[in-house]
């Protein structure tokens, strides 16, 4: 009951008119900025951080949290409508965009909104009751375990997103290799930079996302030559009751997975959405429809993403370690305000911690309320003929790429990835696993080298540690099952081909 008491205390702080206003402003501005392709949560928070300097501590953190969630929602909007994802909305491109092509963009956006809300709510329950305990889970994972976890991520993702394990795995590995571009953290050596100064920091995620998804998609639409106007009809926003019943289980599953994975340092939110999607594809009642544009494919990942975004505050607030760049930026905001995140934060500044937790939920409400009127307005943009629209999309790609580092050279990188994305598309290789590989690649390398260093070069460490051994066992099972399935499949096909000529004459 202590937790409930604390939560009530938090709401007392979050529900003052003053804080409500800042929460609302944060959500709105965050969504609007997040809508622009290329400006993900990280860029949005860094652009808007100065806005909060003059506000008092609790309000400014509440506003920043609002910006964060708003930006994430805005991201999924651009992913669903234009297939321009950011790290947190890669999976939204798959089913969300497919729904847009079917003319159900309104429904997809609403589903993403409501599932995010469900995810956020469940994550807050987790946060309130288990924050300190979950903070310790991260300590159980050693470098070898992280390696194994990421490998599991690669295999699951490759398997579900493309349906073909080899294609997906290949794209993951390509992503990992692309992540190698830049300066090696351990030795300071520059790899694959071709002595170009703007490559020393590596390729930015935005360039890859906009190139492989955005530009490739523009070209695809232009190549197909058909006027793409799925928005001319009436925009249906609210799901019917049976549709809503389909959203709910996926969203709940996604939230639980997201809450757990969000706690782990590293690509929390990025893995969470893939994991939720993978699970849905395995257990959902409508699993055969996932991938072709169905609600579950949007609901599960949106919920997981949001839940992970919230529980990723746990390591920051309970042990003071930011687990991803966005959290590092939040930590900077805390420190600017004179608060050192860490074990003493909850005890030292209860109004701040619980106020923030409560305002997360309030922020979620705002997003859903804002979502409904705004989406109608947003979608009217797409009634513009594509010939007018695509230079605009291209322009946003340019601005998005440029504003990451204020560097025009980055645009050339985006152009290169545009060409690569086009090649991938023509080769029927899916770009979603590539993004995951790119995000996790540097972490995988770091943990792999660390694990090897600790074990003095013996691979035994991966089998000896219980967590990594279990995870690797899962991979072995998956691969074995795939091989068996492939052999059976080919045999069946051969048998089918052999049987056919005999059947037809009779």
């Amino acid at each position, binding site marked *: 009951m202590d937790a409930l008491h604390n939560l009530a205390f938090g709401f007392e702080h979050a529900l003052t008119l003053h804080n409500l206003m800042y929460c609302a402003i944060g959500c709105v501005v965050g969504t609007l900025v997040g809508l622009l392709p290329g400006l993900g949560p990280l860029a949005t928070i860094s652009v808007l951080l100065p806005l909060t300097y003059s506000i008092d501590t609790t309000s400014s953190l509440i506003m920043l949290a609002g910006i964060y969630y708003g930006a994430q929602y805005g991201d999924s909007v651009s992913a669903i409508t234009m297939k321009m994802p950011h790290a947190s909305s890669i999976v939204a491109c798959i089913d969300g965009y497919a729904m847009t092509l079917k003319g159900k963009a309104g429904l997809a956006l609403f589903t993403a909104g409501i599932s995010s809300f469900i995810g956020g709510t469940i994550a807050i329950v987790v946060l309130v009751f288990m924050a300190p305990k979950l903070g310790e889970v991260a300590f159980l994972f050693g470098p070898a375990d992280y390696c194994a976890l990421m490998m599991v991520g690669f295999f699951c993702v490759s398997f579900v997103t493309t349906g073909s394990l080899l294609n997906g795995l*290949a794209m993951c590995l390509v992503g*990992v290799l692309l992540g190698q571009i830049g300066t090696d953290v351990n030795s300071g050596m520059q790899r*694959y930079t071709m002595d170009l100064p703007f490559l020393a920091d590596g390729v930015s995620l935005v360039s890859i996302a906009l190139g492989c998804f955005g530009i490739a998609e523009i070209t695809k639409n*232009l190549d197909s030559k058909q006027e793409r106007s799925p928005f001319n009809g009436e925009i249906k926003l609210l799901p019917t009751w049976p549709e809503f019943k389909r959203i709910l289980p996926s969203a709940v599953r996604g939230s639980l997975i997201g809450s757990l994975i969000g706690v782990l340092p590293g690509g929390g939110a990025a893995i969470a959405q893939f994991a939720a999607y993978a699970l849905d594809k395995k257990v959902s009642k409508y699993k055969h429809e996932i991938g072709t544009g169905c609600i579950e494919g949007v609901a599960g990942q949106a919920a997981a993403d949001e839940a992970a975004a919230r529980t990723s505050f746990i390591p920051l607030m309970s042990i003071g370690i930011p687990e991803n760049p966005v959290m590092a930026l939040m930590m900077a905001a805390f420190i600017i305000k004179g608060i050192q995140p860490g074990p003493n934060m909850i005890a030292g500044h209860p109004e701040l911690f619980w106020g923030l937790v409560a305002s997360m939920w309030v922020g979620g409400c705002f997003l859903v309320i804002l979502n409904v009127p705004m989406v109608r307005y947003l979608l009217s943009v797409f009634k513009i003929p594509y010939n*007018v629209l695509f*230079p605009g999309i291209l322009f946003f790609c340019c601005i998005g790429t440029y*504003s990451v580092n204020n560097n025009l050279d980055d645009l050339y990188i985006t*152009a290169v990835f545009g060409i690569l994305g086009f090649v991938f598309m023509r080769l029927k290789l899916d770009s979603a696993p590539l993004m995951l590989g790119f995000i996790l690649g540097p972490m995988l390398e770091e943990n792999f080298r660390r694990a090897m260093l600790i074990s*003095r070069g013996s691979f035994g460490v991966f089998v000896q540690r219980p967590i990594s051994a279990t995870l690797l066992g899962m991979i072995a099972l998956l691969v074995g099952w795939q091989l068996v399935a492939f052999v059976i499949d080919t045999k069946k096909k051969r048998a089918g081909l052999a049987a056919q000529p005999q059947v037809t004459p009779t």
Partner: protein
Amino acid sequence: MIDQNLTRGIFLVLFALIFGVTAALNYPIGAFAHGGPGLFPVLISILLGLVGLALVIRSRFEQKVPMNFKLKNIGVIIGSLCCFAFVSEHVNMIVGIVLMVFIAAIAGTNYSWMRNVKVSIALVLIAFAFQRLLGLNLPLY
């Protein structure tokens, strides 16, 4: 006819070779216990090469899928993007935006000067809004 499945495998093998050979030749590999900067890229390239080979082998057992490339549109889009970057750097971004719109429109289904002018004006206005309201550091003029 170019077989899509076969090309895919070959493309991935080539990709792995480029990254793997570069790493093996230029960066110290070190030992497993103390990995150098070249170790991890080489390992990953080997894995990717294997996957690529597997795809090449698998393509022998699968039906061939024809591949078609249309190079015009991707060329136009990439060209307009590079043009935007180049002109923005050496002249200013407003000229860059206008040029980008006019070049990119070649890829569209029909071409109209009037429409390009309107789109350019709208985008320049949006760029100004970004600069003034969001504080993005755009070199507009």
